[in-house]
């Protein structure tokens, strides 16, 4: 069998015990084996059972993607690994805080574009805004690109979170 060499982007959800070192284990696995991390988010989702959900966006050949999942799955504190890209439809969202500094027309233009993108101004001074925007990664990219000539000074992004469509849980 010959391996397929096309590069695919996959979003993988990983349920882990929220214990010391678990994130280091996951990150170390990616760096140690030379896999890509395009984005990684983590937070506890079940306080009672101390379970965290990691969402990692990665890219590689189908063979590498399978490896990544198998390698994640054999980490001891990992409960479940689900490839959201491979397993039917899912929705992905990312949140960004975008700071734009400027005056006059540029300021007006920034507000106008923010409106189109449904970004909210959550902080404002005489010469700056902080916008909150959420949506698909590409939408955030587009918004940030448009802000560059208007005085973009700082960006903070959460990375992607994702969930499968429909009624079933992970």
């Amino acid at each position, binding site marked *: 069998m010959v391996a397929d060499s096309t590069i695919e982007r996959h979003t993988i959800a990983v349920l882990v015990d929220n214990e010391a*070192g678990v994130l280091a284990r996951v990150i*170390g696995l990616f760096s140690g084996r030379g896999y890509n991390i395009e984005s990684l988010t983590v937070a506890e989702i079940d306080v009672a059972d101390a379970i965290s959900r990691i969402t990692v966006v990665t890219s590689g050949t189908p063979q590498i993607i399978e*490896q990544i999942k198998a390698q994640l799955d*054999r980490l001891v504190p990992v409960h479940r690994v689900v490839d959201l890209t491979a397993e039917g439809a899912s929705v992905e969202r990312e949140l960004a805080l975008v700071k734009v500094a400027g005056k006059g027309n540029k300021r007006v233009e920034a507000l106008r574009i923010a409106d189109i993108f449904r970004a909210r101004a959550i902080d404002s001074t005489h010469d700056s805004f902080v916008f909150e925007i959420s949506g698909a990664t590409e939408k955030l990219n587009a918004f940030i690109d448009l802000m560059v000539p208007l005085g973009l000074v700082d960006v903070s992004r959460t990375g992607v979170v994702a969930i499968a469509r429909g009624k079933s849980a992970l």
Partner: protein
Amino acid sequence: MADRKLTGSEMIIKALVNEGVDTVFGYPGGAVLPIYDAIFQQNQLKHVLVRQEGGAVHMAEGYARSTGKVGCVLVTSGPGATNAVTGLTDALMDSIPLVCLTGQVPTHMIGNDAFQEADTTGITRPCTKHNYLVKDIADLPRIMHEAFYVARSGRPGPVVIDLPKDIQMALGTYKDLSQVEHKTYRPRMKAEKTEIEKAVAMIAAAKKPLFYCGGGVINSGLKASKQLDRLIKLTGAPVTLTLMGLGAYPGTDKQFLGMLGMHGTYEANLAMHDADLIVAVGSRFDDRVTGRLNAFAPNSKKIHIDIDPSSINKNVMVDLPIVGDVGTILDQMLRVWKAKGLKTNPKVMKAWWKQIDGWRQRDCLKYNQTGSVIKPQYAIERLYEATKDRDCYITTEVGQHQMWAAQYYKFNEPKRWMTSGGLGTMGYGLPAAIGVQVAHPEALVVDISGEASFLMNMQEMSTAVQCGAPVKVFITNNQYMGMVRQWQELMHGSRYSESYTDALPDLVKLAEACHWVGLRATKAEEVDDVIQEMISIDRPVIADIWVDQKENCFPMIPSGAAHNEMLLGPDDEAQQSGSEEGMVLV
């Protein structure tokens, strides 16, 4: 009684005993003194005092590999833990179950660069199957037992438990949790019926089937080897073993083609190249085995049976992956094979064997022992002849001698052969031999060694004496890092850069200085006598065998070459130009 409070150290001892540990290999230091104090006050555990922590880990590996039990190590914080790292990595690569207890500075000092503090869980995270830092005495019983479960279950491996000194002294309640199920880690053991049916049908239909089996068969237990033997005999197919798999199938059986891979036999490698079905059992398509990937077994379908899903489709894409315990799956396959009354086609198999016998005629392991200069192959073959009917265990170091041992020593049973396969750790063999001897006090344990490797952990000679382990170190002494010299000859224009050891110690005198016995053979005629004497002495012995310094190890698939581009001997060397691509490979 049940809720009498114990100290952490007392709990550790209790947990070890409840896990069936009888021997701990270790070395004391400030951060483990409470555990050593608890060891002093009990008599259920034996402690083997080593000379360097690296030795302790290899000893535990030898112990584990030869018994199938989890090996246990105890070292102090900081340098104790960092010295253990090579052994842990070795155990991870070769899937050896270990639990390594490391001392740590007290919890309130962690992160302060305290004396002998090291981030042990950080350092060992990539070289263990799992590791723990115990921060609360209440977690200690669970972590102790979980560690053993993780080490031995699924694909076995090393587990570190980092134990701050205050935890060792804290009081708590112990509960034997050795039977408790792990909440997340539960490897799949059994295969689906449909997978089994597909697999046996593929085998029955194959024209040129070949079983390619590795260390996973040995890790799965004695029964796995028995089932493998049955299945292979029923199918009449040939079988080859990896370096780690030697002994999983009888080495003297006629269906066995020898080891495959870089220094595998001509018949094993060509059979691999020509096979139309490869049944990989507990083996992992390692680069030493496959050679150049795009030329690997080009016309074959592949079945891959392994307990570790991440081993599947890692290097080589397979047609039928089956995840589970090798022994269980072989059992399932046997049942279905018999229930369906399957058979391979005798005519087709006859043709396959005819082709294999043609390759066998090349007699790829032949060598010329003429004159009195000792050929290393001869020394090892004579060692085999002299010890094959005994209760004998072999360990090795790393280098040419290791490959010759793999080629010329025949193992008919699993767990008799201990070698550093994945990591290739020089210095493994002597401590591993001591670990084996501790587990099997009556057996003959021989480390087939090279002089350079031996020097890497020779301090453990002293351990052997102290713990009464009469191991034998059989050194094929060529004064060279022979394997390095061989690569320099083949790939770097015979520029022998730093691969010659001047000023070797006199190994016979060294033996005597360490309360060992030293023997030496410098001529072929002396080899048998030295071996006999070595075997007959009930003390540790170095047998210093002066061998041909220029001998190379063949057959060889040079890095970056395919199975059918093997060098069979010195005459082939001339044609070897060494591709650029191959040169960068290790």
